[in-house]
């Protein structure tokens, strides 16, 4: 009787110790999983933060680019208006003027043609000459496309 009780107690003890061991191992495994999860979450948060920063930078770059293009388009409008004005300013009639002062107008037209050709070269990506870059006076600029040809020229308002 006594030996049977002893055996049961021993069995219970051994089972208890083994169970405790298994439980500890399970806890360690759970701990490792939780640590891995934590690491993944931290990485995910870092990735999200980076993504948000990237989106902010992209948005800023797009806004700046839009602003630049809008300025350019406004310059185009102004250039065309200036061109129209040159032909029609103070009810000017270029035809009548050409009859009266043929040689002078021919000179002006040829100079204008040369300037316009230079504007096309610059628009296609040609490098500015030093003279073009230095021009700050109205008499020195290319009046066909001052914003493009003479970036340092500031017209008086």
């Amino acid at each position: 009787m006594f030996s049977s009780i002893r055996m049961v107690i021993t069995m219970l003890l051994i089972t208890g110790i083994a169970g405790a061991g298994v439980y500890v191992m399970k806890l360690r495994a759970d701990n490792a999983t939780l640590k891995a999860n934590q690491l993944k979450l931290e990485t995910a948060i870092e990735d999200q933060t980076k993504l948000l920063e990237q989106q902010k930078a992209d948005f800023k770059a797009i806004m700046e680019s839009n602003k630049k293009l809008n300025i350019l388009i406004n310059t185009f409008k102004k250039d065309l208006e200036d061109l129209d004005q040159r032909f029609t300013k103070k009810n000017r009639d270029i035809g009548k003027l050409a009859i009266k002062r043929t040689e002078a107008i021919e000179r002006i037209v040829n100079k204008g043609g040369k300037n316009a050709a230079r504007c096309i070269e610059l628009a296609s990506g040609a490098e500015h000459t030093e003279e073009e870059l230095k021009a700050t006076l109205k008499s020195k600029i290319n009046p066909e496309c001052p914003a493009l040809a003479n970036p340092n020229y500031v017209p008086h308002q």
Partner: protein
Amino acid sequence: MYHINKILAVAFILLLTGCSIGGEKKIKIFSVEKPREKLNYEMPTPLQMEEIKWIIITSANADEVFKKLEEAGIDPVLFGITDKDFQVLARNFAQIRQKLQETNNLLEEYKKYYEDSNNTQ
């Protein structure tokens, strides 16, 4: 008998927990991000325009103009446009130039946006 029981008990416990020791090795999968190759086109070669000479011809100077052309060995023929069409031509040229500039600027902006290190996809 008592010892046999003990041994059996320990063996039974080992049998139950044995598989959980060590176990299968886990396969590790990792990815390496390789940036997309850049499209390194050169910017288009700038145009080099040739000079053209405009001659204004009126009823008063027509004979003189043709005479000068003949003297210079140039065929005495002119392709004419009216003063109004000259204005239209000037405007058309300005619009072509503006479109060229706009397209070039757009190209530069795209290049800057996509090739900037902050915006590389």
